[in-house]
C-alpha cells in the first residue's frame, strides 16, 4: 500500500492528536451539559426521583405504611414522625408521595418510550419518503392532534376500562403525533443534506441511510421533546387521577393525593401542598434537563 503524505508532517498531527483527546459525540454532549448548572440540577433531581421510585419499597412498607388506614392519627400536621403530616385516613403523606413517584414516573417514561417508538417510526418514514405516504400519515396524525390529549385519554380510559395499561396506551396515542411531527420535520431537513446524498452515492440502501445517517442526525429535538413530554404526561396522569380516571385509590398516585386532599384545602393545606410540590419539582427538573439537553446537543452552539 502506498502512502501519500500530502504535506502533512506526521509529527504535527501526532501533537494535535495528543492535545485534543479523541472525543466521542456523547462525551462532548456530556461535557457541554455539565457546564449548564440548571440542567445539572434538573438531572440530579431527576436521578434522585428515579432512585426514590426504585427504592420506595425499601424505604416504606406498602401494606402497613402506604395504604393502611390509621384513623386516630388522621390529619396530623408535619412532625418528626410524619415529616409531611398525615392525610384524612391517617396515612403518612411522605410515604405516599415516595411510593407515588413509582406510578407517576413509570407511567410517564413508558408512555414516552411507546410514543417515541411509534411516533418516531411514522415521522421518519413520512419525512424520508415524502409524497403520498407523508400525506396519509401526517393527515392521520393531524386527526389525533385535533383532539385534546387529556380529553382523548379520558375517552379512551372510559371506553377501555380504568387500568394502568389502558392509561399508558391512551396517553401514548395522544403523544404520538407530537413525536411524529418533530421527527418528520427534522428528517425533512436532514434528508436533503449532502452526506445523505453521499451515502446514497456509496450504494447504501434506504434502510441503512435512515438508520445510520438520517435518524442519528435528527434525534436532538426528539430527545428534548421526550424529556419535556415525560413532564407533560406526568401532569396529565395527575390530572386524570385528580378526576378519578387515572390510578385508582388507595394507590398513592400524586394526582390522586391532590384530589383526596382538596376537601381539606382550607384547614389542612399541607395534604395537597406536598404532592403538588412533588409534581412541580419533577416537572421543573425534567424541563430544566430538557432545555439543557437541547443546548448541549446542538453542536452549533459550541
Amino acid at each position: 500500500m502506498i502512502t501519500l503524505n500530502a504535506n502533512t508532517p506526521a509529527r504535527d498531527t501526532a501533537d494535535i492528536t495528543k492535545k485534543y483527546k479523541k472525543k466521542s459525540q456523547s462525551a462532548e454532549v456530556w461535557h457541554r451539559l455539565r457546564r449548564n448548572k440548571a440542567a445539572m440540577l434538573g438531572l440530579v433531581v431527576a436521578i434522585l426521583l428515579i432512585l426514590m421510585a426504585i427504592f420506595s419499597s425499601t424505604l416504606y412498607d406498602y401494606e402497613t405504611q402506604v395504604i393502611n388506614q390509621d384513623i386516630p392519627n388522621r390529619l396530623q400536621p408535619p412532625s418528626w414522625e410524619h415529616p409531611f403530616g398525615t392525610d384524612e385516613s391517617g396515612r403518612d403523606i411522605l410515604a405516599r408521595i415516595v411510593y407515588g413517584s413509582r406510578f407517576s414516573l413509570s407511567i410517564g417514561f413508558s408512555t414516552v418510550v411507546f410514543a417515541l417508538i411509534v411516533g418516531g417510526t411514522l415521522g421518519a418514514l413520512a419525512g424520508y419518503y415524502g409524497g403520498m405516504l407523508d400525506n396519509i400519515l401526517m393527515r392521520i396524525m393531524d386527526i389525533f392532534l385535533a383532539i385534546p390529549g387529556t380529553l382523548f385519554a379520558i375517552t379512551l380510559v372510559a371506553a377501555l376500562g380504568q387500568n394502568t395499561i389502558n392509561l399508558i396506551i391512551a396517553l401514548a396515542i395522544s403523544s404520538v403525533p407530537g413525536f411524529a411531527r418533530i421527527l418528520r420535520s427534522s428528517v425533512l431537513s436532514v434528508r436533503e443534506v449532502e452526506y445523505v446524498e453521499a451515502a446514497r452515492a456509496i450504494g447504501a440502501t434506504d434502510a441503512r441511510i435512515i438508520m445510520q445517517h438520517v435518524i442519528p442526525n435528527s434525534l436532538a429535538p426528539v430527545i428534548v421533546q421526550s424529556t419535556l413530554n415525560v413532564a407533560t404526561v406526568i401532569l396529565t396522569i395527575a390530572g386524570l387521577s385528580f378526576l378519578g380516571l387515572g390510578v385508582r385509590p388507595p394507590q398513592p398516585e400524586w394526582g390522586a393525593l391532590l384530589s383526596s386532599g382538596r376537601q381539606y384545602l382550607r384547614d389542612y393545606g399541607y395534604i395537597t401542598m406536598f404532592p403538588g410540590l412533588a409534581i412541580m419539582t419533577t416537572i421543573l427538573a425534567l424541563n430544566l434537563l430538557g432545555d439543557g439537553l437541547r443546548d448541549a446537543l446542538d453542536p452549533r452552539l459550541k
Partner: protein
Amino acid sequence: MNENMNNTNEFALDMSDLVVEYRTEDGIVQAVNGLDLQIEHGSTLGLVGETGAGKTTAGLSILKLVPSPPGVIVRGSILLDGEDVLKKTEKEMEKIRGKRVSMIFQDPMTSLNPVMTVEDQIAEVIEIHNEGGGKPLEKAREMLEMVGIPGERGREYPHQFSGGMKQRVVIAMALACNPMLLIADEPTTALDVTIQAQVLEMMRKLKEVQNTSMLMITHDLGVVAETCDKVSVIYAGRVVEHGTLEDVFENTLHPYTEGLFNSLPNLDDRKAKLKPIKGLMPDPSNLPAGCVFCPRCNYACEICAEEKPKRLYRNATHYVECHLYNEKNILEGGVIGK
C-alpha cells in the same frame, strides 16, 4: 491487485445523447440536452462550464441519483464499461454506487456525517460492498493513511478535521472500493488554493495507482489543465467543444471556450483587463431556438439564431458545434481571433 486493468470495453464511461429535464410546475427545465461524454479507462475527462450548465446533473445521472421528482432522464444511454446504467434497477444501482462508480461532492464540510467517526464512514462503503473481506475498519484506516491522514485519527469526528483533511477523507471514502470511475464534482471549490493543489495532486496520484478513470466536473480551467487528459466544454447542457487538452487550450474553436479563457487573468500581461463573457446563461426552461450561445456570442450571425449548429471535427479528437466553421476552414483552426 487491479481489476480495472482487464476491462473489455474501450470506454469506462460512454454517455450519448443524454437528455435530463426537471419537470416543475412552472415549466420544464432542460438541464441536459443531448450530452455526449466518453472516458477511456484510466484517463481523466474535464467537464467545464458555468454554474447551471448541467454539469452536476450530468454527474448525478451516471449514478441515477438525479432527484426524482422533478428530475426525469428523458432519453440517451449511459454505458459503464459497456453496461447501460439507465436499464438497471434500483437494487442493481446500489451495487454499482460506491463500488464501480463513486462520487466526490463539492463541499467536504457537509458531505460527511457529523455523528459518525471518520473511520466508521469509510468502513461503511467497504462494508456495503464487502470489499477486502472481513475487516472494514482496518481497510478504512489503511485508506486514511493512503490519503496522508494518520490512521489513529480515524476515531475522530468530522468536526475535528480541517476542510482539506475532510476532503481527503471524502476521497478516501470514494476510492475505498477501488472504483472504475470516479466522479469529482468540483472537489476543490470549497478549498483554498494551496490546499487545492495538494488535493488535486493527491487525486492524480491515487488515480494513477488504482487506474481509475475520472470525470472532473469543474468551472476552473486551471484545475483542468492540471489534472485532465481531455476536456469537454459544456454550455446549457450540451458539449460545445471537446478535445484533448492541447486541442482545446491551443486551438480554441468555440467562442464560448474563448470567452472562458478571456475570463482568466493573464500572467504575461498583468495590465490586461479581464474580458468576461457578457450576459448570463440562458434560462434553461426557455432555451434559444438556434445556437444556445447565440445571444452572448460576439461572432453571432443570422443563422445562429435560427439553426442549431452541427458537430464538426477538426481532427479525430477535437470537435466543435458552431456555425463559424465549415469543413474547410475548421482544418486551419482559429477563425476566432486571439
